[in-house]
């Protein structure tokens, strides 16, 4: 008698959403196939880093597991995967290293080449590299 105006309330598949909230955009991490593809990018970047005589020496005394862990989180966080660092964490992690603009530039070009070789579209490369560039001041002295 008093329920006529109240139809079943349907929240849809996504559950309740706030007003104006759009369907969440896929991260680049997901777009490029998640961990199975990103892992290849990580290992390729790892190879290039160690072979590079400008950036490589930073890893001379570092345990392999730590370098791989670092690279995995680094690439994941840049691509919107399951890792994220606050600016303060990034600053603290690099504070003891003498990273110059040259090193940063070198890593940037290695990253660009790696992404390109793994089929990351130019627009997405730019987005990832922009995220990288945004942290320049946090790590370079």
């Amino acid at each position, binding site marked *: 008698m*008093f*329920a006529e105006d*109240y*139809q*079943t*309330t*349907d*929240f*849809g*598949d996504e*559950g*309740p*959403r*706030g*007003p104006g909230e759009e369907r969440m955009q896929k991260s680049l991490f997901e777009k490029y196939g998640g*961990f199975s593809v990103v*892992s290849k990018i*990580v*290992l390729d970047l*790892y190879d290039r880093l*160690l072979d590079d005589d400008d950036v*490589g*020496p930073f*890893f*001379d005394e570092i*345990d*392999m*597991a730590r370098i*791989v*862990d670092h*690279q*995995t*989180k680094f690439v*994941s966080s840049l691509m919107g*995967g*399951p*890792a994220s660092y606050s600016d303060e964490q990034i600053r603290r992690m690099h504070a003891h290293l003498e990273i110059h603009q040259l090193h940063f530039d070198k890593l940037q070009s290695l990253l660009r080449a790696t992404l390109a070789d793994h089929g990351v579209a130019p627009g997405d490369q730019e987005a990832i590299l922009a995220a990288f560039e945004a942290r320049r001041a946090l790590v370079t002295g």
Partner: protein
Amino acid sequence: MTIAAINEQLLRAIGVGVALLDLETLRLRFCNDTFRGWFGEMEVGSNLLEQFGDLDVEALRAALTSEGRYATESTFRLRRRTMTVAMDFNRALDEDEPIAVLVCQNISRIKELESMIDSYSAMVERNTREIKREKEQVEKLLLNMMPRSVYEEYKTFGIVTPRLYDPVSVVCIDFIGFAEMVTEHEPAVIVSELNDIYTAFDRIGEQFGCARIRAVGDLYIGVAGLPDPTEDHAQAAANAAIRFMRYLHQRNASHPIQWSCRVGIASGPVVGSVVGVQKYIYDVFGPAVIYASRLRYMAEPMTITGNGAVVAALDNQFSATEAGTLALSGESEEPVFRISAEQMRAGQEL
């Protein structure tokens, strides 16, 4: 080219490190290019232990003597790369001399992958924990807004079906002079007082099975008999209402701000449903809510007024006295009652 020459060339070129060792002395007799690439400083004639100091020689000799083979791993740095090599020793004879054939496979990539999976799974596990925590927070918030059974229905089916509950008992309370109190006191003071009172009401409601469904300003509404029907919904509502007032009496005795309420209780049907799609809320509405709300206007300060239906369902713990008539539904006037607790009369004026 002879077969032997082809064999040797093949052996030199393959991506597996191969070396021949004198079994007695463990000195290197031969190694291929891959082996030399990894362990460049080893010359033919040098002792294996110079390169692999941590090799368990005893175990190696024992295994080669008994089973004829021995397997181990070795990790070393090649430039700045950490290399891990799986080493497989096999006993053989070279023109009647006992030798060991050492075959080395580069398993660095596997080790790197293992490290990466460790790293990734740690990240995913941490995220999963965070998501779980957030989910619990959301669940807690939603459970504040709707009964658990309604929440479970929403979680399972994504929808909540409006439902008629008949009968239930609704308690409606407001405070006399609330508008003046709000202007007289600091907002923070009023909010903190209301928080105190509503928290106590919630606790009492929980104890007696009369859950809050709404609190808007000074209006507090609780309902008994929902979502699980109970026979004693009227008792539950009356018990809660009596305790609400008893709590206020006790509180007033020790607090500077005095709160005086009036209470309406009504039994009847209600509909429970989630209303709204984006700004959704679980709401209970219908005759019992409207009646209880109207009945409270008939109540003197710190008394309870109820309709006939609720009084009919109360046992002898409570007493009801007629307190006039009210047009609750439609035009016809019906009697309303003042409800009080029998056992509390002697000690406490309610």
